[in-house]
């Protein structure tokens, strides 16, 4: 048997830190103690030993690391001491250097976190390199389009004809039969709740997107018809603490929509492009007879996993056979001219799953997405801000060089070499950089919660990641060296003789370079200001532009489809309220989040000879036009007494696209329903964001709609709301009222643009601020250098005004030069940005002049502070010293 021994590790640790001359007896003491404890409490012995060892970490017992004095460490210590002293001696300059630096670094850090989060999307799949999404590409020379929905029949063909494809899974991520938003309740419970984001999916999709399961398996969860997969969150909401597999969920009180829970999945990670709590199976679904095998009607997003080693580019060219063998024949058979277009311009692309979030800006799809160009833009801003801060450092260091010249001269006389001096100044700048980094991280920790609110992210600083601390230290050193290298060489180049004789041109030798750097700083700042001004103007334009309807006084009540037969009487009761002017049921409203669709329309009888007009068709009731405040420009509004004969209203764009002089009375068809008779034309209104142009749209009468739009008198919003709630509760006691205001919904459509512009504004302001702190420091320095000159001028009768001009004119000139450089660059890029909007402000030079004005004003204020101080001072103060 092994005799128990004191723990080796503890012994080693002790020997590591304890003084050599203490080691022997201390170890002896500890051993003796160990064995004596061992006799009494064998279990405690080890623990006690550790305790005793740790108790030895006391100053008296520690090895003196400094005992090995070397010249290098002495010098290093001295360098630090000198750096520390010069930092303390010039508090203002140090504060500007460090303050500017830390703000710059903080901005950089926040932006990097933001970018990092965007780049982390969809990286969680183990097989991500062979998971793809199919994208339609219509490369019409006049109008390139990309979209993601495919015909249902594509799945079978992909599975059978292409050996490199391992699995195919389809997804319907939008309002479609029971997809989208539903009023739901578990069977056996009374309360009906509104839930969003139901999607249809093939069981294979779970495997392709590597959905993680809590209960059930990816193979079985969706394999039975009418099964549903719900998320962990929703499982614990509706079935707390139990395994809900086998339970039934009822949607919209519809007997045909009873779904059996087949499994519970983990919530999708925040950085997944796909976000849903409910997946309905596509197994056994056929939305109309023959739907699943048809090539019409693209509604399915299609995901693939390829076999390892297959070439996606090759597959793309093979996929053209789908066009030639299936799509074109399908449309040609029906005499649809779309077939020719397809043949000429259409192809199918594969998009890697990791590209979906950031590289889909030109793809029509249902997912919220980031924008790789924004990632680049923010990255550039981060670098600019950091550069501005580094320039401050360089400028202030060289400007203050006169004060250090004597020190350098003396050191050289005593025998210091150039390299040791360079080393000294580099140490100094690294010290500044380290202090700034520490401050920056503290600032970032404080500001991160606010930044998260603005950016609508949940970022955190990854202190615990192994790479974080080394990365920060490495960047601190690198940035310290980069910004310190020029000043270091500049300062050490002084000739000792001339310095000590006292005729250094006091820090003005590098004035040329300093001016260049200041110009760079202000060019960048003015560019950012121009950007901020124009982006804000465009945002204001969009949110305030007349949209063609009255969005400000409309209350939307959601989920009215569950009222069934009672809908009419509910509408009448709401209408009775004194503050309510109009009520209308519909499925679609000109704000995001309501039903959209796409249909092809032909004037009756031309479907084989002409191309169809793509248009939305919205289900509404006869009060819709009145309620929304649309203008009827031709024909008449729906006549409540004449609802037969399929009347529809079309918008001006559709009238134009149909190409008939007088559309009233014309019959149009989408080939599904009997032909519609156009009874009126309404003025165009915006129903998508202003990035998009207004497209064709028609309105038809339809019952059972899910939204009630209530136009009310805005003077008593609360009263209207509470009365409407009362009425709702009488009609649907088990279902909470869900309402929204149209103007809020409308503004929400621009949330992402507004968010981006807000972040842009904040970072621009910070960048300008950093540039100004540098200018402030420089102007203060100049005033100090010319103190005697100014005093003498004042004695000889110069006015404050003339001294102010003397000191600030140089800086103002630099800012003007910056403006001249920045203006055309800014104009160019902003013009490009605005081209993206269908409805935009003209980019006038006025904005650019305004931005330049702001830049100049800020610079002037910054400079005037020190200049005026110099101008007002008593000349005696400046001359007294000699």
């Amino acid at each position: 048997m092994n005799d128990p021994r004191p723990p080796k590790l503890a012994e080693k640790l002790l020997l590591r830190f304890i003084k050599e001359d203490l080691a022997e007896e201390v170890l002896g003491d500890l051993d003796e103690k160990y064995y004596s404890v061992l006799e009494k409490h064998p279990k405690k012995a080890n623990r006690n030993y550790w305790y005793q060892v740790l108790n030895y970490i006391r100053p008296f017992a520690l090895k003196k690391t400094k005992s090995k004095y070397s010249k290098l460490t002495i010098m290093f210590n001295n360098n630090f001491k000198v750096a520390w002293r010069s930092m303390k001696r010039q508090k203002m300059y140090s504060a500007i250097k460090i303050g500017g630096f830390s703000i710059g670094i903080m901005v950089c850090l926040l932006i990097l976190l933001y970018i990092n989060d965007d780049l982390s999307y969809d990286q969680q799949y183990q097989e991500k390199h062979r998971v793809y999404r199919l994208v339609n590409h219509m490369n019409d020379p006049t109008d390139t389009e990309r979209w993601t929905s495919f015909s249902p029949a594509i799945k079978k063909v992909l599975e059978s004809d292409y050996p490199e494809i391992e699995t195919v899974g389809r997804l319907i991520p939008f309002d479609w039969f029971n997809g989208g938003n539903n009023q739901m309740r578990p069977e056996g419970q009374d309360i009906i709740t509104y839930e969003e984001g139901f999607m249809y999916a093939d069981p294979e999709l779970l495997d392709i997107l590597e959905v993680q399961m809590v209960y059930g398996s990816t193979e079985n969860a969706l394999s039975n018809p009418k099964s549903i997969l719900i998320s962990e969150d929703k499982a614990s909401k509706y079935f707390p603490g139990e395994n809900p597999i086998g339970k039934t969920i009822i949607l919209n009180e519809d007997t045909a929509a009873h779904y059996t829970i087949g499994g519970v999945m983990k919530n999708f990670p925040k950085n997944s492009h796909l976000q849903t709590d409910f997946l309905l199976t596509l197994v056994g679904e056929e939305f109309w007879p023959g739907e699943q095998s048809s090539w019409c009607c693209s509604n399915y997003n299609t995901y693939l996993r390829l076999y390892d080693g297959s070439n996606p580019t090759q597959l793309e060219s093979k996929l053209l056979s789908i066009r030639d063998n299936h799509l074109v024949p399908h449309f040609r058979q029906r005499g649809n001219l779309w077939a020719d277009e397809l043949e000429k311009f259409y192809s199918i692309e594969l998009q890697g799953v990791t590209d979906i979030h950031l590289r889909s800006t030109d793809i029509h799809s249902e997912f919220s997405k980031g924008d790789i160009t924004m990632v680049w833009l923010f990255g550039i801003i981060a670098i600019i801000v950091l550069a501005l801060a580094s320039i401050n450092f360089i400028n202030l260091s060289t400007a203050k060089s006169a004060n250090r010249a004597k020190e350098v001269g003396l050191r050289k006389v005593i025998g210091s070499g150039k390299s040791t001096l360079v080393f000294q100044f580099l140490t100094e700048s690294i010290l500044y950089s380290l202090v700034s980094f520490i401050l920056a991280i503290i600032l970032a920790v404080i500001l991160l919660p606010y930044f998260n609110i603005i950016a609508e992210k949940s970022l955190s600083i990854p202190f615990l990641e192994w790479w974080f601390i080394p990365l920060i230290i490495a960047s601190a050193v690198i940035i310290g060296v980069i910004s310190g290298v020029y000043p270091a060489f500049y300062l050490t180049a002084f000739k000792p003789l001339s310095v000590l004789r006292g005729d250094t041109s006091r820090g003005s030798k590098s004035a040329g370079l300093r001016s260049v750097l200041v110009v760079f700083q202000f060019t960048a700042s003015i560019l950012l200001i121009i950007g901020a001004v124009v982006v804000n103007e465009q945002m204001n334009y969009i949110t305030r532009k007349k949209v063609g309807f009255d969005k400000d006084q409309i209350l939307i009540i959601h989920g009215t489809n569950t009222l069934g037969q009672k809908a009419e009487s509910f509408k009448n009761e709401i209408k009775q309220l004194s503050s309510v002017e109009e009520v209308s049921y519909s499925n679609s409203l000109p704000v995001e989040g309501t039903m959209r669709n796409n249909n092809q329309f032909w004037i009756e009888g031309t479907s084989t000879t002409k191309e169809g007009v793509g248009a939305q068709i919205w289900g509404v009731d006869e009060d819709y036009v009145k309620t929304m405040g649309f203008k009827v420009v031709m024909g008449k509004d729906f006549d409540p007494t004449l609802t037969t004969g399929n009347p529809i209203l079309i918008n001006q764009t559709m009238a134009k696209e149909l190409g008939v002089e007088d559309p009233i009375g014309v019959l149009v068809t989408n080939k599904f329903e009997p032909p519609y008779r156009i009874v009126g034309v309404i003025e165009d209104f915006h129903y998508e964001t202003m990035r998009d142009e207004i497209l064709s749209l028609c309105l038809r009468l339809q019952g059972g709609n899910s939204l009630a739009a209530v136009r009310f008198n805005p003077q008593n919003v609360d009263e209207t709301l509470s009365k409407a709630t009362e009425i709702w509760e009488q009609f649907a006691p088990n279902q909470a009222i869900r309402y929204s205001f149209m103007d809020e919904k409308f503004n929400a459509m621009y949330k992402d643009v507004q968010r981006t512009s807000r972040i842009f504004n904040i970072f621009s302001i910070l960048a300008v601020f950093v540039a100004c702190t540098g200018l402030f420091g420089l102007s203060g320095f100049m005033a100090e250098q010319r103190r005697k000159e100014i005093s003498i001028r004042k004695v000889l009768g110069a006015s404050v005004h003339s001294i102010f001009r003397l000191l600030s004119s140089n800086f103002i000139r630099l800012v003007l030069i910056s403006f001249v450089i920045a203006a055309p660059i800014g104009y160019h890029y902003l013009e490009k940005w605005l081209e993206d909007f269908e409805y935009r402000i003209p980019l006038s030079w006025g904005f650019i002049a305004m931005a330049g004005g702001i830049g100049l004003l800020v610079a002037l204020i910054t400079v005037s502070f020190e200049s005026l101080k110099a101008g007002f001072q008593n000349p005696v103060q400046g001359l007294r010293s000699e």
Partner: protein
Amino acid sequence: MGKYHLGEFEEIVLLTVAILQEDAYGIAIIDEIEKRLKRKVSIGSLQTVLRRLEGKDMLSSQLGEATKVRGGKRKRFFKLTSTGKKVLEDTKEQRLGLWDAIPSFVINDP
């Protein structure tokens, strides 16, 4: 002038070293203190005080023989120096002086 004032723990350690006479080394001192005063002392804190007292020239030390129970490591034995003795005596005087100055009824009263 410059009379050194012993801390409470220093005083205990000095006294214990005096009690143990020739046998005063780390663990022995701790055991003695634990036995007599029923208080826990870690080796580290004891060593701190021993070094300090040695530095003040109240203790002297020398390395002794190696024994098996200590894994072949030698002990360091501590001894009171004359300064140490003097300080202890002074301290005792002071305490007694203070005790004497207390009127007897203060302590005897319940």
